């Protein structure tokens, strides 16, 4: 039983973090390209 609880909360913690990292990574890439142009 507890395994479901554990997996669920891992998902709850990891997913927003994953999205945050994804956004940050994409932003770094764009800012690198901006810097290259300027």
């Amino acid at each position, binding site marked *: 039983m*507890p395994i*479901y*609880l554990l997996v669920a*909360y891992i*998902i*709850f913690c990891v997913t*927003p973090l994953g999205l945050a990292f994804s956004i*940050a990574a994409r932003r770094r890439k*764009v800012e690198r*390209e901006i810097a290259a142009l300027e």
Partner: protein
Amino acid sequence: MRRKSLVDSILIVLSVAVFLVALGMVFFYAPREATMGEVQRIFYFHVASAWVGFFGFFVTFVGGVGYLATHNCRWDILAFSSAEVGLVYISMTLVTGMLWAKPAWGTYWTWEPRLTISAVQWLLYVAYVMLRGSVLSPEREARFAAVYGIAAFVTVPLSWFAIRWWRTIHPQVISSEGMALAPRMIHTLFVSIAAFTLVYFALLRQRIALEQSRDHLAALRLHDEAATS
């Protein structure tokens, strides 16, 4: 720019803090539920993410209306960013809902109202994102997405009623209603919702900033092209 990133930093720190507090409350403050046991604790974050998922839809709706009214890109950026974050939240809702269903009802999926409405919202979000990726011109993309976001949002309450009434016809329905909520449970639920809402706003602002950077890059590129040709 500096002031903006101060707000962002505060938001990030605050959301992480409240998230951790909520996590603590879920595991140590909220009482053990009598019938379902420990697994019931999924409920708090699951409901919180469902609420925020729907809220994201609402923000996309507002962004769409704003864009059609003003033709200002900021509204469109808001709509799109909220859709992306909202989609992630609804996906979480769906998956954790299934993880709750299995120990609670013995099956990963069932046509229980909240699971079903999450699935419907998920499909609407995905359709929205697919629409954005497939329109032939950027200006049209914003307009079409706004229209679809509005239509989609309007059908969600209708879906909710239809699904609930549909399920009440069948007596063997598995209902997630009627779970007695002790005061501590209510506290935990509220803090969880607050935590997820803050995280949503933090992610939303970051996503908007990304989109603004992209626009800046596109403008720079155009400027470059014009200058060199």
